[in-house]
Protein backbone atom coordinates (compact mmCIF):
# COMPACT_ATOMS: atom_id res chain seq x y z
CA UNK A 1 0.00 0.00 0.00
CA UNK A 2 2.61 2.54 1.09
CA UNK A 3 4.90 1.33 -1.66
CA UNK A 4 2.20 1.95 -4.24
CA UNK A 5 1.75 5.46 -2.91
CA UNK A 6 5.50 5.97 -3.05
CA UNK A 7 5.64 4.79 -6.66
CA UNK A 8 2.96 7.25 -7.78
CA UNK A 9 4.31 10.03 -5.65
CA UNK A 10 7.79 9.48 -7.07
CA UNK A 11 6.42 9.61 -10.60
CA UNK A 12 4.73 12.93 -9.91
CA UNK A 13 7.78 14.43 -8.27
CA UNK A 14 9.96 13.24 -11.13
CA UNK A 15 7.72 15.19 -13.50
CA UNK A 16 8.31 18.25 -11.35
CA UNK A 17 12.06 17.63 -11.44
CA UNK A 18 11.98 17.37 -15.26
CA UNK A 19 10.22 20.71 -15.32
CA UNK A 20 13.02 22.14 -13.17
CA UNK A 21 15.59 20.65 -15.55
CA UNK A 22 13.95 22.24 -18.57
CA UNK A 23 13.87 25.60 -16.80
CA UNK A 24 17.58 25.20 -16.10
CA UNK A 25 18.25 24.41 -19.75
CA UNK A 26 16.26 27.51 -20.66
CA UNK A 27 18.27 29.54 -18.17
CA UNK A 28 21.53 28.36 -19.78
CA UNK A 29 20.15 29.41 -23.17
CA UNK A 30 19.15 32.81 -21.78
CA UNK A 31 22.61 33.45 -20.33
CA UNK A 32 24.22 32.51 -23.66
CA UNK A 33 21.77 34.81 -25.47
CA UNK A 34 22.81 37.62 -23.13
CA UNK A 35 26.50 37.12 -23.94
CA UNK A 36 25.80 37.07 -27.67
CA UNK A 37 23.73 40.26 -27.44
CA UNK A 38 26.41 42.00 -25.41
CA UNK A 39 29.43 41.10 -27.52
CA UNK A 40 28.02 40.91 -31.00
CA UNK A 41 25.17 43.39 -30.98
CA UNK A 42 26.32 45.74 -28.27
CA UNK A 43 22.90 45.55 -26.67
CA UNK A 44 23.10 44.13 -23.17
CA UNK A 45 19.89 42.51 -22.00
CA UNK A 46 19.25 43.95 -18.57
CA UNK A 47 16.65 41.57 -17.19
CA UNK A 48 18.87 38.51 -17.15
CA UNK A 49 20.03 38.97 -13.59
CA UNK A 50 16.51 39.02 -12.16
CA UNK A 51 15.20 36.24 -14.35
CA UNK A 52 18.15 34.11 -13.24
CA UNK A 53 17.33 34.74 -9.59
CA UNK A 54 13.66 33.88 -9.98
CA UNK A 55 14.49 30.82 -12.11
CA UNK A 56 16.89 29.60 -9.44
CA UNK A 57 14.11 29.62 -6.85
CA UNK A 58 11.92 27.52 -9.16
CA UNK A 59 14.75 25.12 -10.08
CA UNK A 60 15.55 24.44 -6.43
CA UNK A 61 11.84 24.16 -5.56
CA UNK A 62 11.31 21.61 -8.35
CA UNK A 63 14.23 19.52 -7.17
CA UNK A 64 13.87 19.40 -3.38
CA UNK A 65 10.98 16.91 -3.05
CA UNK A 66 12.23 14.64 -5.85
CA UNK A 67 15.67 14.46 -4.27
CA UNK A 68 13.97 13.64 -0.97
CA UNK A 69 11.97 10.73 -2.37
CA UNK A 70 15.11 9.39 -4.07
CA UNK A 71 16.95 9.58 -0.72
CA UNK A 72 19.37 11.97 -2.36
CA UNK A 73 19.74 14.39 0.55
CA UNK A 74 23.02 13.86 2.33
CA UNK A 75 22.93 12.15 5.69
CA UNK A 76 25.56 10.44 7.80
CA UNK A 77 25.45 6.68 7.35
CA UNK A 78 27.89 5.48 9.98
CA UNK A 79 25.39 3.84 12.32
CA UNK A 80 23.16 2.26 9.67
CA UNK A 81 24.07 -1.26 10.73
CA UNK A 82 22.38 -0.65 14.08
CA UNK A 83 19.64 1.74 13.02
CA UNK A 84 18.25 -0.63 10.41
CA UNK A 85 17.42 -3.19 13.08
CA UNK A 86 13.69 -3.61 13.77
CA UNK A 87 14.20 -2.47 17.36
CA UNK A 88 14.96 1.03 16.14
CA UNK A 89 11.96 1.47 13.90
CA UNK A 90 10.26 3.83 16.35
CA UNK A 91 13.35 5.99 16.45
CA UNK A 92 13.52 6.10 12.65
CA UNK A 93 9.85 6.96 12.49
CA UNK A 94 10.38 9.78 14.99
CA UNK A 95 13.35 11.18 13.05
CA UNK A 96 11.39 11.34 9.81
CA UNK A 97 8.40 12.70 11.70
CA UNK A 98 10.45 15.48 13.27
CA UNK A 99 11.82 16.38 9.85
CA UNK A 100 8.31 16.43 8.40
CA UNK A 101 7.10 18.69 11.21
CA UNK A 102 10.01 21.09 10.70
CA UNK A 103 9.37 21.33 6.98
CA UNK A 104 5.64 21.72 7.50
CA UNK A 105 6.35 24.68 9.81
CA UNK A 106 8.74 26.11 7.24
CA UNK A 107 6.20 25.65 4.46
CA UNK A 108 3.48 27.36 6.50
CA UNK A 109 5.75 30.31 7.24
CA UNK A 110 6.82 30.45 3.59
CA UNK A 111 3.15 30.63 2.50
CA UNK A 112 2.68 33.43 4.99
CA UNK A 113 5.77 35.22 3.68
CA UNK A 114 4.53 34.91 0.10
CA UNK A 115 1.06 36.17 1.07
CA UNK A 116 2.54 39.19 2.82
CA UNK A 117 4.76 39.87 -0.20
CA UNK A 118 1.71 39.68 -2.42
CA UNK A 119 -0.10 42.05 -0.08
CA UNK A 120 2.41 44.87 -0.27
CA UNK A 121 3.41 44.19 -3.86
CA UNK A 122 6.97 42.90 -3.52
CA UNK A 123 8.45 43.12 -7.03
CA UNK A 124 11.89 42.90 -8.64
CA UNK A 125 13.77 46.17 -9.19
CA UNK A 126 14.28 46.28 -12.93
CA UNK A 127 11.60 44.23 -14.62
CA UNK A 128 8.99 44.74 -11.90
CA UNK A 129 8.08 41.05 -11.80
CA UNK A 130 6.05 40.14 -8.71
CA UNK A 131 8.02 37.77 -6.47
CA UNK A 132 5.12 36.03 -4.77
CA UNK A 133 4.51 33.26 -7.35
CA UNK A 134 8.11 32.15 -6.87
CA UNK A 135 7.81 32.32 -3.11
CA UNK A 136 4.66 30.21 -3.33
CA UNK A 137 6.60 27.68 -5.41
CA UNK A 138 9.09 27.32 -2.58
CA UNK A 139 6.27 26.92 -0.04
CA UNK A 140 4.61 24.20 -2.14
CA UNK A 141 7.94 22.46 -2.64
CA UNK A 142 8.70 22.29 1.07
CA UNK A 143 5.15 21.06 1.73
CA UNK A 144 5.75 18.20 -0.73
CA UNK A 145 9.13 17.54 0.91
CA UNK A 146 7.32 17.31 4.24
CA UNK A 147 4.84 14.85 2.72
CA UNK A 148 7.72 12.67 1.53
CA UNK A 149 9.01 12.52 5.09
CA UNK A 150 5.55 11.63 6.43
CA UNK A 151 5.58 8.72 3.98
CA UNK A 152 9.04 7.71 5.19
CA UNK A 153 7.91 7.88 8.81
CA UNK A 154 5.03 5.50 8.06
CA UNK A 155 7.29 3.21 6.07
CA UNK A 156 9.74 3.07 8.96
CA UNK A 157 7.03 1.42 11.05
CA UNK A 158 6.40 -1.30 8.49
CA UNK A 159 7.93 -4.65 9.42
CA UNK A 160 9.46 -5.12 5.95
CA UNK A 161 13.17 -5.23 6.82
CA UNK A 162 14.82 -5.04 3.40
CA UNK A 163 13.98 -1.82 1.73
CA UNK A 164 16.11 -0.78 -1.16
CA UNK A 165 17.81 2.46 -0.33
CA UNK A 166 19.80 4.25 -2.95
CA UNK A 167 21.79 7.08 -1.51
CA UNK A 168 23.52 9.18 -4.10
CA UNK A 169 25.43 12.29 -3.34
CA UNK A 170 27.77 14.85 -4.74
Amino acid sequence: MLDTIERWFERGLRGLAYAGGLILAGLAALVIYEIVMRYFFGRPFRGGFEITELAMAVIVACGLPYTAIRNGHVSVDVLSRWLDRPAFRWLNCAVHGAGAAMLALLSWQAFDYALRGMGYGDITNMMRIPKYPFQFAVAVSTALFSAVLVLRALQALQPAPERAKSGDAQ
Partner: protein
Amino acid sequence: MTPTLAGILGFLALFLLLAVRMPIGLAMMIVGAAGIALLNSTTAALNNLGSFAYSYSAVYTLSVIPLFVLMGAFATVSGMGADMYRTAFAWVGHRRGGLAAATIIACAGFAALSGSSIASAATMGKVSLPEMERYRYNPRLATGAIAAGGTLGILIPPSTVLIVYALLTEQSVGRLFLAGVVPGLLLTVLFVLTVFAVAVFNPQAGPPGERIPMGERFGILMHSGALIFVVLIVIGGIYAGVFTVTEAAAVGAGLTFLHALWTRRLTMAKFLSALLDTIKTTAMVFFILIGAHFFAPFLALTRIPVELADGVGDLEIPAFAILMVIILAYIVLGTFLEGFAMMVLTVPIVLPVITTLGYDPIWFGIIMVLVLEMGLISPPVGLNVFVVKGVAPDVPLGEVYRGILPFWGAMAVGVALLVMFPQIALFLPDTMLGK
Protein backbone atom coordinates in the same frame (compact mmCIF):
# COMPACT_ATOMS: atom_id res chain seq x y z
CA MET B 1 21.08 30.10 29.52
CA THR B 2 24.35 31.69 28.43
CA PRO B 3 24.93 31.87 24.67
CA THR B 4 28.03 29.67 24.96
CA LEU B 5 26.12 26.93 26.75
CA ALA B 6 23.34 27.16 24.17
CA GLY B 7 25.96 26.79 21.48
CA ILE B 8 27.48 23.69 23.06
CA LEU B 9 24.03 22.14 23.52
CA GLY B 10 23.25 23.06 19.91
CA PHE B 11 26.30 21.18 18.69
CA LEU B 12 25.41 18.16 20.80
CA ALA B 13 21.87 18.17 19.41
CA LEU B 14 23.21 18.51 15.90
CA PHE B 15 25.54 15.53 16.24
CA LEU B 16 22.75 13.50 17.79
CA LEU B 17 20.40 14.27 14.88
CA LEU B 18 23.16 13.46 12.38
CA ALA B 19 23.88 10.17 14.15
CA VAL B 20 20.26 9.07 13.70
CA ARG B 21 20.55 9.81 9.99
CA MET B 22 18.59 13.02 9.70
CA PRO B 23 19.59 14.74 6.45
CA ILE B 24 22.29 17.27 7.23
CA GLY B 25 20.36 20.25 5.85
CA LEU B 26 17.34 19.42 7.96
CA ALA B 27 19.40 18.86 11.11
CA MET B 28 21.10 22.25 10.74
CA MET B 29 17.72 23.86 10.06
CA ILE B 30 16.14 22.41 13.22
CA VAL B 31 19.04 23.22 15.52
CA GLY B 32 19.63 26.62 13.92
CA ALA B 33 15.98 27.70 14.06
CA ALA B 34 15.60 26.46 17.65
CA GLY B 35 18.79 28.26 18.63
CA ILE B 36 17.68 31.52 17.00
CA ALA B 37 14.31 31.24 18.78
CA LEU B 38 16.13 30.76 22.09
CA LEU B 39 18.86 33.38 21.78
CA ASN B 40 17.00 35.96 19.75
CA SER B 41 13.22 35.54 19.57
CA THR B 42 10.60 33.14 18.28
CA THR B 43 9.39 35.81 15.86
CA ALA B 44 12.87 36.08 14.36
CA ALA B 45 13.10 32.31 13.99
CA LEU B 46 9.69 32.10 12.28
CA ASN B 47 10.55 34.98 9.95
CA ASN B 48 13.76 33.23 8.97
CA LEU B 49 11.84 30.02 8.32
CA GLY B 50 9.46 31.87 6.05
CA SER B 51 12.06 33.68 3.99
CA PHE B 52 15.35 31.75 3.93
CA ALA B 53 14.37 28.87 1.64
CA TYR B 54 13.40 31.42 -1.02
CA SER B 55 16.02 34.07 -0.42
CA TYR B 56 18.95 31.64 -0.37
CA SER B 57 17.85 29.88 -3.56
CA ALA B 58 17.01 33.00 -5.58
CA VAL B 59 20.63 34.14 -5.73
CA TYR B 60 22.33 35.04 -8.98
CA THR B 61 25.82 33.86 -8.05
CA LEU B 62 24.49 30.45 -6.97
CA SER B 63 23.30 29.73 -10.50
CA VAL B 64 26.86 28.60 -11.27
CA ILE B 65 26.16 25.42 -9.32
CA PRO B 66 23.40 23.90 -11.51
CA LEU B 67 25.01 25.26 -14.69
CA PHE B 68 28.37 23.62 -14.00
CA VAL B 69 26.66 20.41 -12.91
CA LEU B 70 24.73 20.49 -16.19
CA MET B 71 27.96 20.95 -18.12
CA GLY B 72 29.43 17.89 -16.37
CA ALA B 73 26.29 15.85 -17.08
CA PHE B 74 26.40 16.66 -20.81
CA ALA B 75 30.15 15.99 -20.90
CA THR B 76 29.48 12.55 -19.44
CA VAL B 77 26.88 11.81 -22.11
CA SER B 78 28.98 13.17 -24.96
CA GLY B 79 31.77 10.63 -24.42
CA MET B 80 34.47 13.25 -23.86
CA GLY B 81 35.79 11.13 -20.98
CA ALA B 82 36.33 8.14 -23.25
CA ASP B 83 38.04 10.31 -25.87
CA MET B 84 40.33 11.74 -23.24
CA TYR B 85 41.20 8.25 -22.03
CA ARG B 86 42.09 7.12 -25.55
CA THR B 87 44.38 10.11 -25.93
CA ALA B 88 46.11 9.53 -22.61
CA PHE B 89 46.47 5.83 -23.47
CA ALA B 90 48.17 6.65 -26.76
CA TRP B 91 50.78 8.74 -24.98
CA VAL B 92 51.58 6.70 -21.85
CA GLY B 93 49.82 3.32 -22.30
CA HIS B 94 52.94 1.47 -23.49
CA ARG B 95 54.80 2.03 -20.22
CA ARG B 96 54.56 -0.22 -17.18
CA GLY B 97 51.49 0.93 -15.28
CA GLY B 98 50.69 3.08 -18.29
CA LEU B 99 46.99 2.26 -18.38
CA ALA B 100 46.56 3.32 -14.77
CA ALA B 101 48.55 6.48 -15.47
CA ALA B 102 46.32 7.12 -18.49
CA THR B 103 43.30 6.76 -16.19
CA ILE B 104 44.68 9.42 -13.86
CA ILE B 105 45.45 11.81 -16.72
CA ALA B 106 42.03 11.26 -18.26
CA CYS B 107 40.42 11.90 -14.87
CA ALA B 108 42.31 15.17 -14.62
CA GLY B 109 41.10 16.18 -18.08
CA PHE B 110 37.53 15.21 -17.32
CA ALA B 111 37.76 17.04 -13.99
CA ALA B 112 38.19 20.25 -15.94
CA LEU B 113 34.62 19.77 -17.20
CA SER B 114 33.06 18.23 -14.14
CA GLY B 115 32.96 19.56 -10.62
CA SER B 116 32.12 16.26 -9.02
CA SER B 117 34.40 13.47 -7.87
CA ILE B 118 31.67 10.88 -8.05
CA ALA B 119 30.88 11.71 -11.68
CA SER B 120 34.59 11.64 -12.60
CA ALA B 121 35.20 8.28 -10.93
CA ALA B 122 32.03 6.75 -12.41
CA THR B 123 32.67 8.01 -15.94
CA MET B 124 36.33 7.09 -16.09
CA GLY B 125 35.75 3.82 -14.25
CA LYS B 126 33.37 2.60 -16.94
CA VAL B 127 35.86 3.48 -19.66
CA SER B 128 39.19 2.45 -18.20
CA LEU B 129 38.43 -0.54 -16.01
CA PRO B 130 37.55 -2.92 -18.89
CA GLU B 131 40.82 -1.92 -20.59
CA MET B 132 42.87 -2.58 -17.49
CA GLU B 133 41.15 -5.94 -17.04
CA ARG B 134 41.97 -6.80 -20.63
CA TYR B 135 45.66 -6.20 -19.96
CA ARG B 136 45.42 -8.25 -16.73
CA TYR B 137 46.12 -5.37 -14.41
CA ASN B 138 46.27 -6.04 -10.72
CA PRO B 139 42.73 -5.10 -9.56
CA ARG B 140 44.23 -3.19 -6.64
CA LEU B 141 46.15 -0.83 -8.88
CA ALA B 142 43.27 -0.55 -11.33
CA THR B 143 40.56 0.34 -8.81
CA GLY B 144 42.89 2.47 -6.71
CA ALA B 145 43.82 4.59 -9.70
CA ILE B 146 40.17 5.19 -10.62
CA ALA B 147 39.08 6.06 -7.09
CA ALA B 148 42.03 8.39 -6.57
CA GLY B 149 41.87 9.93 -10.04
CA GLY B 150 38.19 10.67 -9.58
CA THR B 151 38.90 12.85 -6.58
CA LEU B 152 40.62 15.33 -8.90
CA GLY B 153 37.11 16.32 -9.96
CA ILE B 154 36.64 18.60 -6.97
CA LEU B 155 40.12 20.18 -7.02
CA ILE B 156 40.56 21.01 -10.69
CA PRO B 157 38.08 23.78 -11.58
CA PRO B 158 35.14 23.87 -12.00
CA SER B 159 34.43 22.39 -8.60
CA THR B 160 31.12 22.35 -6.74
CA VAL B 161 32.99 22.04 -3.44
CA LEU B 162 35.05 25.17 -4.14
CA ILE B 163 31.87 27.07 -5.11
CA VAL B 164 30.23 26.14 -1.82
CA TYR B 165 33.40 27.06 0.08
CA ALA B 166 33.42 30.41 -1.70
CA LEU B 167 29.82 31.05 -0.63
CA LEU B 168 30.41 30.05 2.97
CA THR B 169 33.52 32.19 3.33
CA GLU B 170 32.54 35.10 1.05
CA GLN B 171 35.59 34.53 -1.14
CA SER B 172 35.65 34.94 -4.91
CA VAL B 173 34.77 31.81 -6.90
CA GLY B 174 37.12 32.82 -9.73
CA ARG B 175 40.04 33.26 -7.35
CA LEU B 176 39.40 29.87 -5.74
CA PHE B 177 39.17 28.20 -9.14
CA LEU B 178 42.50 29.74 -10.13
CA ALA B 179 44.02 28.61 -6.85
CA GLY B 180 42.92 25.03 -7.57
CA VAL B 181 44.66 24.76 -10.95
CA VAL B 182 48.30 24.23 -9.95
CA PRO B 183 47.55 22.02 -6.91
CA GLY B 184 45.28 19.96 -9.19
CA LEU B 185 48.09 19.50 -11.70
CA LEU B 186 50.55 18.79 -8.88
CA LEU B 187 48.27 16.09 -7.49
CA THR B 188 47.86 14.60 -10.97
CA VAL B 189 51.65 14.36 -11.29
CA LEU B 190 51.94 12.84 -7.81
CA PHE B 191 49.29 10.22 -8.69
CA VAL B 192 51.03 9.34 -11.97
CA LEU B 193 54.37 9.01 -10.14
CA THR B 194 52.61 6.77 -7.61
CA VAL B 195 51.34 4.53 -10.39
CA PHE B 196 54.81 4.21 -11.89
CA ALA B 197 56.32 3.54 -8.46
CA VAL B 198 53.79 0.75 -7.84
CA ALA B 199 54.57 -0.70 -11.27
CA VAL B 200 58.33 -0.63 -10.57
CA PHE B 201 57.96 -2.47 -7.27
CA ASN B 202 55.48 -4.96 -8.66
CA PRO B 203 56.03 -5.39 -12.43
CA GLN B 204 53.07 -7.78 -12.66
CA ALA B 205 50.70 -5.13 -11.33
CA GLY B 206 50.61 -3.08 -14.52
CA PRO B 207 51.78 -4.77 -17.73
CA PRO B 208 52.56 -2.36 -20.56
CA GLY B 209 50.00 -1.82 -23.31
CA GLU B 210 50.74 -1.63 -27.00
CA ARG B 211 52.96 1.18 -28.24
CA ILE B 212 51.36 3.62 -30.61
CA PRO B 213 53.61 5.32 -33.19
CA MET B 214 54.38 8.99 -32.58
CA GLY B 215 52.58 10.13 -35.72
CA GLU B 216 49.33 8.49 -34.72
CA ARG B 217 49.52 9.93 -31.23
CA PHE B 218 48.98 13.44 -32.53
CA GLY B 219 46.07 12.20 -34.60
CA ILE B 220 44.48 10.72 -31.51
CA LEU B 221 45.17 13.92 -29.59
CA MET B 222 42.78 15.61 -32.02
CA HIS B 223 39.98 13.37 -30.75
CA SER B 224 40.25 15.17 -27.46
CA GLY B 225 40.15 18.47 -29.28
CA ALA B 226 36.56 19.11 -28.25
CA LEU B 227 37.35 18.65 -24.56
CA ILE B 228 40.43 20.85 -24.73
CA PHE B 229 38.46 23.47 -26.67
CA VAL B 230 35.63 23.59 -24.12
CA VAL B 231 38.07 23.77 -21.21
CA LEU B 232 39.99 26.59 -22.89
CA ILE B 233 36.82 28.56 -23.58
CA VAL B 234 35.31 28.06 -20.12
CA ILE B 235 38.35 28.40 -17.88
CA GLY B 236 40.19 30.74 -20.24
CA GLY B 237 37.09 32.91 -20.56
CA ILE B 238 36.89 33.37 -16.81
CA TYR B 239 40.57 34.23 -16.47
CA ALA B 240 40.62 36.56 -19.42
CA GLY B 241 37.57 38.35 -18.04
CA VAL B 242 35.51 37.63 -21.17
CA PHE B 243 32.68 36.31 -19.05
CA THR B 244 31.62 35.93 -15.46
CA VAL B 245 31.77 32.53 -13.81
CA THR B 246 28.02 32.10 -14.31
CA GLU B 247 28.30 32.92 -17.99
CA ALA B 248 31.24 30.56 -18.40
CA ALA B 249 29.19 27.78 -16.83
CA ALA B 250 26.27 28.42 -19.20
CA VAL B 251 28.59 28.52 -22.22
CA GLY B 252 30.24 25.28 -21.05
CA ALA B 253 26.86 23.60 -20.67
CA GLY B 254 25.87 24.82 -24.15
CA LEU B 255 29.12 23.61 -25.75
CA THR B 256 29.06 20.16 -24.14
CA PHE B 257 25.39 19.88 -25.17
CA LEU B 258 26.28 20.70 -28.78
CA HIS B 259 29.17 18.22 -28.70
CA ALA B 260 26.87 15.49 -27.40
CA LEU B 261 24.45 16.29 -30.24
CA TRP B 262 27.29 16.36 -32.79
CA THR B 263 28.62 12.96 -31.73
CA ARG B 264 25.03 11.59 -31.89
CA ARG B 265 25.37 10.24 -28.39
CA LEU B 266 22.58 12.40 -27.01
CA THR B 267 19.26 10.60 -27.12
CA MET B 268 16.10 12.06 -25.66
CA ALA B 269 16.33 9.60 -22.76
CA LYS B 270 19.92 10.60 -22.03
CA PHE B 271 19.07 14.29 -22.25
CA LEU B 272 16.29 13.87 -19.71
CA SER B 273 18.42 11.74 -17.41
CA ALA B 274 21.20 14.37 -17.55
CA LEU B 275 18.62 17.00 -16.53
CA LEU B 276 17.30 14.81 -13.73
CA ASP B 277 20.78 14.11 -12.34
CA THR B 278 21.57 17.80 -12.47
CA ILE B 279 18.41 18.78 -10.63
CA LYS B 280 19.01 16.15 -7.98
CA THR B 281 22.57 17.29 -7.31
CA THR B 282 21.43 20.92 -7.30
CA ALA B 283 18.66 20.29 -4.79
CA MET B 284 21.05 18.28 -2.62
CA VAL B 285 23.60 21.11 -2.50
CA PHE B 286 21.00 23.85 -2.00
CA PHE B 287 19.26 22.06 0.82
CA ILE B 288 22.57 21.88 2.68
CA LEU B 289 23.21 25.55 1.92
CA ILE B 290 19.76 26.57 3.16
CA GLY B 291 20.29 24.56 6.35
CA ALA B 292 23.71 26.16 6.79
CA HIS B 293 22.08 29.60 6.62
CA PHE B 294 20.03 28.70 9.68
CA PHE B 295 22.97 27.26 11.56
CA ALA B 296 25.43 30.08 10.84
CA PRO B 297 23.39 32.94 12.44
CA PHE B 298 22.76 30.73 15.47
CA LEU B 299 26.51 30.13 15.80
CA ALA B 300 27.14 33.86 15.47
CA LEU B 301 24.63 34.51 18.28
CA THR B 302 26.48 32.08 20.54
CA ARG B 303 29.71 34.07 19.91
CA ILE B 304 31.58 30.75 19.98
CA PRO B 305 33.49 31.32 16.69
CA VAL B 306 34.72 34.77 17.78
CA GLU B 307 35.69 33.66 21.25
CA LEU B 308 37.36 30.54 19.97
CA ALA B 309 39.37 32.57 17.46
CA ASP B 310 40.37 35.03 20.22
CA GLY B 311 41.30 32.19 22.54
CA VAL B 312 43.40 30.49 19.91
CA GLY B 313 45.04 33.82 19.08
CA ASP B 314 46.09 34.23 22.71
CA LEU B 315 47.56 30.73 22.94
CA GLU B 316 51.31 30.38 23.33
CA ILE B 317 51.33 27.60 20.75
CA PRO B 318 52.87 28.26 17.32
CA ALA B 319 50.28 28.84 14.59
CA PHE B 320 51.77 26.00 12.61
CA ALA B 321 51.01 23.48 15.38
CA ILE B 322 47.36 24.60 15.53
CA LEU B 323 47.12 24.33 11.75
CA MET B 324 48.45 20.77 11.93
CA VAL B 325 45.87 19.88 14.59
CA ILE B 326 43.10 21.32 12.40
CA ILE B 327 44.30 19.42 9.33
CA LEU B 328 44.59 16.16 11.27
CA ALA B 329 41.11 16.67 12.73
CA TYR B 330 39.77 17.19 9.20
CA ILE B 331 41.42 14.00 7.96
CA VAL B 332 39.79 12.06 10.80
CA LEU B 333 36.38 13.75 10.33
CA GLY B 334 36.62 13.16 6.58
CA THR B 335 36.72 9.41 7.06
CA PHE B 336 33.10 9.31 8.20
CA LEU B 337 31.47 12.65 7.30
CA GLU B 338 30.34 13.49 3.80
CA GLY B 339 32.43 16.27 2.25
CA PHE B 340 29.82 19.02 1.88
CA ALA B 341 28.43 18.22 5.29
CA MET B 342 31.82 18.46 6.91
CA MET B 343 32.51 21.76 5.22
CA VAL B 344 29.30 23.58 6.13
CA LEU B 345 29.51 22.28 9.70
CA THR B 346 33.08 23.28 10.38
CA VAL B 347 33.90 26.30 8.22
CA PRO B 348 32.00 28.87 10.35
CA ILE B 349 34.08 27.81 13.35
CA VAL B 350 37.41 27.00 11.77
CA LEU B 351 37.76 29.88 9.33
CA PRO B 352 37.92 32.67 11.98
CA VAL B 353 40.66 30.66 13.71
CA ILE B 354 42.56 30.24 10.45
CA THR B 355 42.41 33.94 9.60
CA THR B 356 43.36 34.91 13.17
CA LEU B 357 46.43 32.72 12.81
CA GLY B 358 47.29 34.73 9.71
CA TYR B 359 46.64 32.10 7.06
CA ASP B 360 45.06 32.87 3.71
CA PRO B 361 41.41 31.72 3.39
CA ILE B 362 41.84 30.91 -0.32
CA TRP B 363 44.85 28.75 0.41
CA PHE B 364 43.00 27.06 3.25
CA GLY B 365 40.09 26.30 0.91
CA ILE B 366 42.45 24.34 -1.34
CA ILE B 367 43.91 22.49 1.66
CA MET B 368 40.39 21.68 2.76
CA VAL B 369 39.44 20.28 -0.65
CA LEU B 370 42.56 18.09 -0.62
CA VAL B 371 41.65 16.78 2.81
CA LEU B 372 38.04 16.18 1.68
CA GLU B 373 39.47 14.19 -1.23
CA MET B 374 41.39 12.03 1.20
CA GLY B 375 38.10 11.40 2.99
CA LEU B 376 36.45 10.42 -0.28
CA ILE B 377 38.76 7.43 -0.61
CA SER B 378 39.28 6.37 3.00
CA PRO B 379 37.28 3.82 4.99
CA PRO B 380 34.63 3.44 6.36
CA VAL B 381 32.58 5.74 4.07
CA GLY B 382 34.71 6.61 1.06
CA LEU B 383 32.08 7.62 -1.50
CA ASN B 384 34.45 7.21 -4.45
CA VAL B 385 35.32 3.73 -3.29
CA PHE B 386 31.66 2.74 -3.44
CA VAL B 387 31.41 4.20 -6.92
CA VAL B 388 34.40 2.16 -8.05
CA LYS B 389 32.95 -0.89 -6.35
CA GLY B 390 29.80 -0.31 -8.43
CA VAL B 391 31.87 -0.43 -11.63
CA ALA B 392 34.02 -3.36 -10.45
CA PRO B 393 31.68 -5.56 -8.40
CA ASP B 394 34.06 -8.53 -8.43
CA VAL B 395 36.87 -6.76 -6.59
CA PRO B 396 36.52 -7.09 -2.80
CA LEU B 397 36.24 -3.80 -0.91
CA GLY B 398 39.39 -4.58 1.07
CA GLU B 399 41.39 -4.90 -2.14
CA VAL B 400 40.15 -1.50 -3.33
CA TYR B 401 41.19 0.13 -0.06
CA ARG B 402 44.60 -1.54 -0.22
CA GLY B 403 45.00 -0.30 -3.78
CA ILE B 404 44.15 3.22 -2.66
CA LEU B 405 46.73 3.35 0.13
CA PRO B 406 49.67 4.53 -2.02
CA PHE B 407 47.48 7.26 -3.57
CA TRP B 408 46.36 8.35 -0.14
CA GLY B 409 50.06 8.72 0.70
CA ALA B 410 50.51 10.84 -2.43
CA MET B 411 47.71 13.12 -1.24
CA ALA B 412 49.35 13.50 2.15
CA VAL B 413 52.51 14.54 0.32
CA GLY B 414 50.39 17.02 -1.65
CA VAL B 415 48.98 18.54 1.56
CA ALA B 416 52.48 18.75 3.07
CA LEU B 417 53.81 20.51 -0.04
CA LEU B 418 50.93 23.00 0.03
CA VAL B 419 51.52 23.74 3.70
CA MET B 420 55.24 24.26 3.11
CA PHE B 421 54.78 26.28 -0.08
CA PRO B 422 51.43 28.13 -0.02
CA GLN B 423 52.50 29.79 -3.26
CA ILE B 424 51.58 26.59 -5.12
CA ALA B 425 47.96 27.62 -4.65
CA LEU B 426 48.28 31.39 -4.37
CA PHE B 427 50.75 32.14 -7.14
CA LEU B 428 48.20 31.96 -9.98
CA PRO B 429 45.36 34.00 -8.43
CA ASP B 430 47.79 36.59 -7.04
CA THR B 431 49.55 37.16 -10.34
CA MET B 432 46.44 37.07 -12.53
CA LEU B 433 43.93 38.86 -10.33
CA GLY B 434 46.26 40.90 -8.11
CA LYS B 435 46.48 40.55 -4.35
